[in-house]
């Protein structure tokens, strides 16, 4: 099985991945954890804004827009069979 790890900011629009890790050193990571961005959670990139940033993600049944500066803190794993 081929697995690819990318940062969340690189996740293509419309595709689904699983959160693998989150940068614990960044001060903003605590809030992301509280919002449910914990390892093992499936996440989908819904829509990129017309000017390329931010991007809406769907996680735990709700949608939230994150800027690149936040989404680079999160590593996700794309599995081919996730699609």
């Amino acid at each position, binding site marked *: 099985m081929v697995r690819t790890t990318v940062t969340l900011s690189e996740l293509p629009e419309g595709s689904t991945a699983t959160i693998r890790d989150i940068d614990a050193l960044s001060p903003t990571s605590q809030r992301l954890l509280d919002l449910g961005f914990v390892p093992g959670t499936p996440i989908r990139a819904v829509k990129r804004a017309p000017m390329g940033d*931010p991007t809406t993600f769907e996680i735990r049944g709700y949608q939230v827009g994150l800027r690149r500066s936040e989404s*680079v803190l999160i590593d996700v794993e794309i599995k081919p069979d996730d699609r």
Partner: protein
Amino acid sequence: MTDKLKRNVYLVGNPNSGKTSLFNAITGERRRVGNWPGVTVQKLEGSATTDTASLTICDLPGTYSLTPATPEEEVVLKTIDEAASGCIVNVVDIANFERNLFLTTQLVELGIKPVVSLNCFDSFTRAGGTIDLQKFATFTGTTPFPTVARTGEGTQNLVEYIGKPDVAGLEDYSSWLSLPQVWLNAAEEGLKLKKLHWNSATPTQRYSALVDLIRLQPGHIVPELIEIRQNLAKKLSEGREKPVKTTDLACELASDRYRRIERLIAACAVVPGKNIPAWQEKLDRVLTHRFLGLPVFALMMAWVFWTTFSIGEIPMGWMESLVDWLGKFVEANMQESLIRELIVGGIISGVGGVIVFIPNILILFFWIAILEDSGYMSRAAFIMDRMMNSIGLHGRAFIPMIMGLGCNVPAVLATRIIDNRFQRLLTMLLIPLVTCAARLPVLVLLCGTFFHDNPSTWMFTLFFVNLLVLIFLGQTTSIIFRTTENSPFLLEMPPYRLPTPSSVFHMLYEKAAHFVEKAGTVILAGSIIIWVLSVFPREVPLSFDYESELTRLRSSEITVETTEKIATLTRQREIEEMEGRYMARLGKFIHPVMEPLGFSWRETVSLIPGFLAKESVVSTLTVLYLPYSDDLGDAMRKTGMTPLTAFVFMMFTLLYIPCIATLGVIWRESGSARFTALSLMVYFAIAYIVSYITLKIGTLLQASPGIAWFEGLIIITAALAAGWYLLKTFIVTISGSKCNSCASCSSCPARGKSDCTGG
């Protein structure tokens, strides 16, 4: 019934969970707005009565978690001890169950037994969700109430329950959401260092014990604590292939909480698989479309702007004629006296200055309420964020900024759509730099007079420099303060909903009342002060006995010559009197400060009433220049005003200080006199510096003929860009080049270095 139970009830919950709707449904109009002690965050309190109790309901700021990211959220943590002694109602948006239960979990972990309001229950059941309330109550140890706060459904049961005498506030009980034993033991050890015990500790003490476990606080690092953390990590690693590091503890705790939540939901509820209906996704696809999104948004903005300022003009005209009529009425029915003048010139026109804004504010907030309630506001912010981010602002700041073009007053009020306080203040700071309609007369007059060949080009130049200054200030401020701010950019996309009349009404009522009550008083007081300055002292020593000369002329034969003479003399007397008033004296007194900019004292004086309303700059100038010529432009040229001085004066008028009404709302909305005073100084300094630089560059350009205006423009742009770059580099250097992957990473000088995490 005097022996009713008195109880304080605190509403906590996620932003967008319907907390404020619930508050409205419970309290109706019985409410008051104040500030939290120590911080300038709005405190909303209301009351409700049941058969058994009289309740004081307090709406705490919305937060996703007890761990604060903004000053608003800190309020929740600081109030939690106080709240635990009363009754906590945790508003949970059941359509967004998992994430909302996170806060509930944190509360339960601290030993708090909240009453849970399962809000938005209608859309949950409509989507096919079911929940076994009995099981939920048993498993969590809380008391759940299904509610639909928007319609008020179910809120009565909730209120009756919290009015009962036996609602327990704080007691330890075991629940599926409670902390696992491993964590409890570690927290107990941590508390032991402070000579405390979990069982007797307050919620805040328990909370800080947990925080100590997951994150080392710089400043009080104790070796024992490090050991406790290592032991905890070791215990958590048991039975896992990958050992847990101490830096992972925060992540572990959050994951553990979500595991507990998932287990709870699986046991007592069926959550609809897809929360977002298909039509909403389709609507979203259009509204945030790559090509369609922006035009649709622009159209909506144009509509809001047009209705606010063009339609708003009609009731504004009524208000103005009402004020006029009132003034005339008083004038006709009162003896001529100082009191009458105060009532007409000071109070009535001051009140008029307040109420003329009300139509604008009501219309603007009607649309804002609709955009906000329908869920479109978040989409608009989503579309605009990239652009606003380039000046350090949140996407939501776009609407206040664009409204500023019409009038700064409703624009400042509109900043309430920004939930992050820092972002809100920054937007407030920048709004007065948006050229409002009242500043146009000055530009039209002077551009028409001094640059009659191509006035629009020069006007454009002014706007452009103004925009550059705005970007400069936005960038600088956000870079200086961003380093201390650790709230991530989060833009929740709530589902689309039909706005309810009641929430729109509440918004309008609250805004209008708030404006009249809070900002109105400041504006009124300011108007009276300006009035006093412009009519006192009553008797001005005149250089010439105008009165007797005028009487003599009037009694003599009426010829063309005498009529003309009478007119000249009356005019001269008017001017002398005006020069003798405090306003002109003040203008002359501060004139030395303005002299380096090349202004004559008349310009300086005209800036003072400009503080009351920017339109007054022109009318004051007209009066002051009357003795030289009937035509203002002609008079200005005669007294030696050059196109360059005119340009600098326009620059200064655009930037110097906001009018008193804007200042009044900034003060009241920011809740901080310090912020207001500081921003006043910033505007003045910026206006002064920019005007001075413009003057110097202009003088240089004039000395070397052949350089056209656009070269000048390029030079100004380059100078500002260079200044900004230097400042940025400087700040990055002094802050230890620690890049927090700030807003402007792509243009950051530290980019490319290993410590830049963004871009």
